[in-house]
């Protein structure tokens, strides 16, 4: 238990809009152990990014609000702590990198300035020291000619370089936890491979505790230790990656894995999960997945499925396993 | 003949004219903006006033020195008359009457009638001058974007030159040289005011030109004229409406400012002229300066509210 570095319990983040209440995160629990890579998996709009933003309190406060839950880090509840405490944790203890590096970086400041700004804020170094640290990081990320790169503006870098610069910036204060929000989604395949290599190194060299958000099961298989499958703002299955891929218990997880085309087989049609993701303003009663589930029973449309423990570290929320 | 006109109106009005549902949709969105509705009501009231007001009020040009400097209803001023025989000042209190609800000016002309007459002028100037400016601007802007190449270049250089002229100084210069007449003022404002519209419409048309529906139209054999009038202009119709609504206040103020400094058409009673004469009597007859100014202010405000509301209503990205 004391191997857990970050714990999320009953997290609920709702957005109160004119058209209704969006229950983006509706009761999510998971724990991140030291040194492990936990993948948050799910389709677009299921609440993965909102979960990540909620951990660091980065939700736009009108219209969103964390209405329930705890985020435990270092004996602190990040949901209830003071803004000052939260600011000390952001960027220093827990860092986050975003999906689109182009819009996440400020276009009017050089990347050198943006990294140095963070270093000086948290580590109080002198300007020259901070610059040196920044350059070391950029070199570590594989960016060539770091001297010049420091004075480049984001628009002068290629997509892959921008991602690396953003990763370098997030590591600049040696955080304990790194949250990566779909870092491989917006890049092409070759860059994707390079970025995954960087994450492998982070795990190996720095023993980084990672929360890796993605919808790509291939990435989960490659880099994840454990996976948390999210649907409709709720956790539907949580297990070590080998078990999720090899022995998925929740129909949704099974469906996701079935969707992956198998190059060794010949089929007429690609498998897909029928239906579409639910409208977050009008989530179905009971289990959020039941309208699309081919194993749905009557109870699924009436009650929330309970969490059932299948084996060590493997839990499902499904009425099939009561 | 009427059928041709109907066709043209349909083409220019485009999606708005021929599609009732779309009009209702935009009207719904506009309605939600209370300020815009307020603005529209005031404008409607003003138009009504200008059209039928003159039938119910006194003659604005009727000079009557007996009744000069009367305050509006509900207000009272003091008039001190020096009696040379008794070497005394006799102070009498003069109050406003319903005969002249807004008072009279220094020559005894009825303020209400003058204000209404001024409303006519301002609305005429506003609508006609803006009409000229918008039409010119649309044609130049869309044509420039559509033709591209050297034509675009020349037209834009020309627009640059026209834009650089300080608009108001130019107005003053021309009226100064050629004499103040309402027609000239309207014409000049219209002919110098198209630059902003041309710019905006050109950039909008440029982005539309590359869209697939234009390519499709051309592939179906549409002539240049048909593409411009049948497709491009209808799609910028909403932009034109917003620009027009937001340009009217500027035009009205330009005419008022011109009249205010004495270059207005002396045969008319525009609000600016009334304001100008009011300056002399600030201490004795303050209402002469206050009333036209309030009307100007409210009119400009109304058009600004409406224009802003329309802009938000037409913008698909704004969350009304």
């Amino acid at each position: 238990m004391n191997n857990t570095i970050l714990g999320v319990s009953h997290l609920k983040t709702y957005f109160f809009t004119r058209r209704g209440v969006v229950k983006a995160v509706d009761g999510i629990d998971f724990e991140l152990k030291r040194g492990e890579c936990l993948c948050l998996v799910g389709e677009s709009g299921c609440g993965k990014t909102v979960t990540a933003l909620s951990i660091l309190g980065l939700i736009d406060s009108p219209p969103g609000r964390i209405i329930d839950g705890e985020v435990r880090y270092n004996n602190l509840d990040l949901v209830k702590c003071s803004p000052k405490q939260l600011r000390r944790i952001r960027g220093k203890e827990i860092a986050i990198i975003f999906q689109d590096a182009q819009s996440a970086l400020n276009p009017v400041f050089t990347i050198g300035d943006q990294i140095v700004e963070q270093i000086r804020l948290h580590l109080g170094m002198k300007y020259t020291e901070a610059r040196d640290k920044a350059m070391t990081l950029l070199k570590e990320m594989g960016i060539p000619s770091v001297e010049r790169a420091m004075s480049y503006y984001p628009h002068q870098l290629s997509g892959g370089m921008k991602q690396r610069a953003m990763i370098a910036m997030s590591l600049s204060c040696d955080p304990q936890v790194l949250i990566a929000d779909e870092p491989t989604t917006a890049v092409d395949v070759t860059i994707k491979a390079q970025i995954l290599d960087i994450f492998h190194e982070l795990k190996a060299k720095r023993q980084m505790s990672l929360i890796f958000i993605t919808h790509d099961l291939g990435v989960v298989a490659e880099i994840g230790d454990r996976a948390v499958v999210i649907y409709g703002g709720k956790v539907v299955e949580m297990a070590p990656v080998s078990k999720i891929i090899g022995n998925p218990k929740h129909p949704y997880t099974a469906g996701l894995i079935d969707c992956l085309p198998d190059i060794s087989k010949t089929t007429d049609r690609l498998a897909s999960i029928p239906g579409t993701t639910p409208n977050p303003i009008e989530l179905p009663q009971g289990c959020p997945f039941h309208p699309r589930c081919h194993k749905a029973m009557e109870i699924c449309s009436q009650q929330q499925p309970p969490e059932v423990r299948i084996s060590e570290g493997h839990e499902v929320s499904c009425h099939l396993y009561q | 003949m009427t059928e041709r006109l109907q066709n043209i109106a349909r083409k220019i009005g485009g999606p708005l004219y021929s599609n009732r549902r779309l009009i209702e949709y935009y009207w719904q969105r506009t309605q939600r903006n209370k300020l815009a509705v307020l603005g529209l009501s005031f404008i409607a009231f003003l138009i009504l006033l200008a059209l039928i007001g003159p039938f119910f009020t006194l003659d604005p040009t009727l000079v009557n020195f007996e009744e000069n400097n009367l305050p509006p209803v509900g207000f009272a001023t003091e008039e001190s008359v020096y009696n040379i025989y008794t070497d005394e000042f006799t102070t009498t209190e003069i109050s406003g009457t319903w005969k002249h609800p807004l008072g009279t000016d220094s020559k005894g002309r009825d303020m209400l009638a003058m204000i209404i007459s001024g409303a006519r002028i301002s609305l005429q100037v506003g609508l006609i001058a803006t009409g000229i400016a918008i039409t010119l601007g649309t044609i130049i802007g869309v044509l420039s974007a559509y033709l591209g190449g050297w034509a675009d270049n020349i037209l834009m250089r020309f627009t640059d030159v026209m834009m650089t002229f300080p608009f108001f100084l130019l107005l003053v210069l021309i009226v100064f040289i050629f004499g103040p007449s309402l027609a000239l003022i309207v014409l000049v404002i219209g002919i110098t005011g198209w630059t902003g519209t041309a710019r905006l419409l050109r950039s909008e048309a440029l982005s539309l030109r590359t869209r697939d529906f234009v390519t499709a139209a051309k592939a179906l054999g549409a002539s240049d004229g048909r593409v411009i009038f049948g497709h491009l202009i209808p799609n910028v119709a909403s932009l034109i409406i917003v620009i027009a609504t937001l340009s009217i206040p500027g035009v009205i103020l330009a005419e008022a400012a011109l009249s205010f400094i004495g270059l207005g058409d002396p045969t008319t009673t525009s609000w600016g002229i009334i304001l100008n004469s009011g300056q002399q009597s600030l201490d004795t007859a303050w209402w002469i300066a206050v009333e036209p100014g309030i009307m100007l202010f409210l009119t400009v405000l109304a058009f600004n509210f409406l224009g802003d509301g329309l802009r938000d209503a037409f913008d698909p990205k704004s969350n009304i």
Partner: protein
Amino acid sequence: MGKSWLRDYIIKRLIYAVIIAWGIVTITFVLVRVGPSSPADKYLANMAASGQDVSQITTAIEARYGVDKPIFEQYADYMVNLFQWDWGWSFSTSMPVIDLIKTHWIYSFQLILLSSLFAAFLGILIGIYSAVKQYTKIDYTATFLSFIGISIPNFWLGVMLILLFSVKLGLFKAYYDTTLPLFSLENLKALVLPVITLGTGMLAGYVRYTRSAMLDNLRKGFVTTARAKGLPERTVIGKHAFRNAILPLFTIIMFDLGSIVFGGAYLTEIVFGIPGLGQISFNAIFADDYPVVVAVTLIGTFLILMINLITDVAYTYLDPRIRYD
């Protein structure tokens, strides 16, 4: 980061500016010469009315104005004179136009400078605050007031302020004394109402533009990143968001400066009797003193050209993404 293309761009713009200025001078010249009355008419009329012998003076005046020569020669003379700083003779004030301008431009400059500073400083602060506190009462109030500010005809505002403060309350002087030093307390007090008059419209505009630019930028990804880095909120807003908001704001403000100022400052000077360029050109109009009116128009145009050029060049330093080539 070298900006070699900038030098080429500036040269190109300067050439355009010269061409445009030439075009405008020509248009003005044509307008003046083509107009129904000649510059000397009023002066001659006055003289004739006072019974003086007009014929000799007529020839002298015509020679001075060059109207006895064919029009192309007049044009050439006009252009040459322009470059030699001979901008004609002001009949109504009996001095060379250039001297008239030299003595009076400073008052316009003072008025415009003070009003712009007042409007920009307050406007930007209120705009930022309004954007950060969107949907609150303060935001709605500021937005509503800015609507009012841009709708009030500024010449009427001036008259109303005079009515209220000078006539009824007797607080501020309604006129400006040129015998006192420029920044003396007396004169600064006299400038309070004019600055408020000219500045209100500008202020309201700046509040709207700043608010809009800030709202756009506060939504952007890099603002979330800045917060995620642990930066204090004031740095997130004041440094990261604002520095991006300045880009569109700067262009709009500079453009407004050109257009509003030449209409608004002109009217404000007239209402308050400030002896700036607007006032003297206004007086010149009713004295039929063409050279003055033409000269002030030319100055105004030239200033706008320069402001536009400076704006475009400065913008390349503000936004590292922009290149003009």
